[in-house]
């Protein structure tokens, strides 16, 4: 993205979130929503514009696990690692995913299609184990059912 275009978008976001409570989090969340991650350039812009030292902003975005400083894959697969899912075998799902996709948790496949992440609980414990792909939550996911699930997102078994 070129600088003027970025500046215009960021200004729009800044203006949209004007009331003080939760302002900075909302701005960062919206930037990430639009761009997929928080780029160094965007953070520097916000730092200057809102008069927050860059060190503080960087501290903020590395504190909260929701923020990404790197661009993720086209599809983000998030495995719930909450208690209920853990008890019902979530670690095995991560293992299987890592094996199938050939990447580790937190990484993105080299073709840029899939990112594996884990989360702390989607509150869908009754369907444990639970996996979220992009915005959709899938319940009762077991290692055996992963291939068919992944195929819905264009994955091809090698």
């Amino acid at each position, binding site marked *: 993205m070129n600088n003027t275009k970025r500046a215009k978008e960021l200004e729009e976001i800044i203006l949209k979130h004007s*009331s*003080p*409570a*939760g*302002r*900075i*989090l*909302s701005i*960062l*969340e919206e930037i990430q929503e639009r761009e997929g991650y928080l780029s160094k350039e965007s953070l520097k812009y916000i730092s200057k514009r809102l008069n*927050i030292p860059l060190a*503080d902003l960087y*501290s*903020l975005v590395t*504190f*909260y*696990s*929701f*923020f990404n400083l790197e661009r993720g894959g086209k599809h983000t697969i998030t495995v719930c*690692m*909450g*208690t*209920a*899912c*853990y*008890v*019902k075998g979530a670690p095995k799902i991560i293992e299987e995913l890592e094996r199938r996709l050939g990447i580790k948790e937190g990484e993105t496949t080299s073709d840029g299609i899939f990112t594996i992440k884990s*989360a*702390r*609980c*989607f*509150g*869908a*414990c*009754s*369907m*444990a184990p*639970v996996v979220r792909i992009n*915005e959709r*939550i*899938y*319940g*009762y996911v077991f290692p055996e059912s992963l291939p068919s699930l992944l195929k819905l997102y264009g994955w091809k078994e090698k």
Partner: protein
Amino acid sequence: MKIRSLEDLEEIAHRGIQKIKGEKIRIAVGLGTCGIATGADYVYTYFENAIKDLTERVFLTKVGCFGYCSEEPLVKVTIPGKPLTILSKVNPEETEEILRAVLSGEIPDKKALCKIEEWNHITEYMVYGKGLANIPSYSDLPFFRGQLKLVLRNAGLINPEDLEEYIAIGGYKSLHKALNMKPEEVIEEVKRAGLRGRGGAGFPTGLKWEITAKNESDEKYVICNADEGDPGAYMNRNELESDPHAVIEGMIIGGYAIGAKEGIIYIRAEYPLAIKRIETAIKQAREYGLLGENIFGSNFSFDIKIVKGAGAFVCGEETAMIASIEGKTGRPRPRPPFPAEKGLWGKPTSINNVETWCNIPIILAMGGERFSKVGKENNAGTKVFSLVGEVKRIGLVEVPLGTKLKTIVHDIGGGSPSGLKVKAVQIGGPSGGCIPEEGFDTPIDYESLRDLGTIMGSGGMVVMSEKTSMVETALFFIGFTSEESCGKCTPCREGLKQMLHILHKILSRRGSEEDLKLLEELSMTIQTTSLCGLGKTAPNPVLTTLRYFREEYEGLINDGKD
């Protein structure tokens, strides 16, 4: 239209009733997060297509979650004059058949879970009708029998995206009542009810309000803690998804009592549906004049803003939450000063849990005196638990405080699904502990749970069977709290890291008795010296498993010896 009076409210209630039990057949699909995860949104779409030409006769709508999650997707069908029936495990392919039966005035028996002839919404009493003899009654099902739905009285029955339905079941009448009382009287009522905070610690809500009210300031705030960080707990999510107006109504009443003009709902980003529903509800409440200037034509004004969390468990702690709302990292600060004195932007602030807020309209409707009789002495009211894990019937369970643990696990939950023995229940999430089967006779109240070494927490209840290793469970929780520690104070940041190390050592059979001793000593120090509740309670899963399942630790140590 702006609602100005009780008459206005009644006029809207009338419109809402037409939707809930009017002349049309009502088909309501349970569309909470859990419903959707099992395909309820497809069920809805199939119905939508099927009734395209039948809208004169059929009213299709969305409702929240009725709590019986292992039976999802749930569809509630109301044929005028007949009981409301709940159909379970509905497939999209079955929608046509269901529709055909319903149109001819029948309920497909094999899909029917139970029926409801009349329902107490507390704020209103709803009579649906009698009949359908071969379908069991709601209260005959073991899952519902021991339950008392106060907080969840509307969940799964009304459309959470329709203010008119909430008003139809008596919504916002409590607010009207409160606004005709003096703020002190409202606080008095809440005190009389004996309500204690449902966010974990059980602090008396009325007292917290009173302190906040007495601290003079030009500005004050109320905050709804919807961060629900405990893994395995999802009642707050459901309360927001299924009955958002109850939370809003509670907050307006609280704002009035305390003297706050602004409320904030701090909600975790992992709950997109709850965020959407609460946003819709706020918008509607504004349109109808229930939020904004001069509510009910009084001179009280109040509005609510949503702040989304960004994935940090510690932000459920009140001082961290305030820092987070102010745009800082969520690191707790020492208390005092408490938020009631110096909260958001340094102003007096009352932070309460979602479920605490949900209870407020109920208290106003029932009266504090009557509310206080529910439950147990010093533990008034009900509590919602999410019953999950190795248990047959999974879902949200609301029981009067003082109910025994075994009632929930065995009677309501039906014990283990696999024939394995139930070994323990984990209560209170990462701050709580594991209670062994021998402790299942304990009544669930704040004090009894504390004596067992755990806490009420927000209500997560994970059942574990004999195949679950307690040491691994402890490791899981310490791993959780360690990663979620804010890193500010040393005992929590460094101590949990070392606990994790020792637990790994024991699990890989390299541990010794000294390690066990060190684990205990370290636990005590972390508990005693940490800055905030996260660190103070983080050792609980280790301490309780050491207390009740020590032989598992010792077994691993002895295994390593030979």
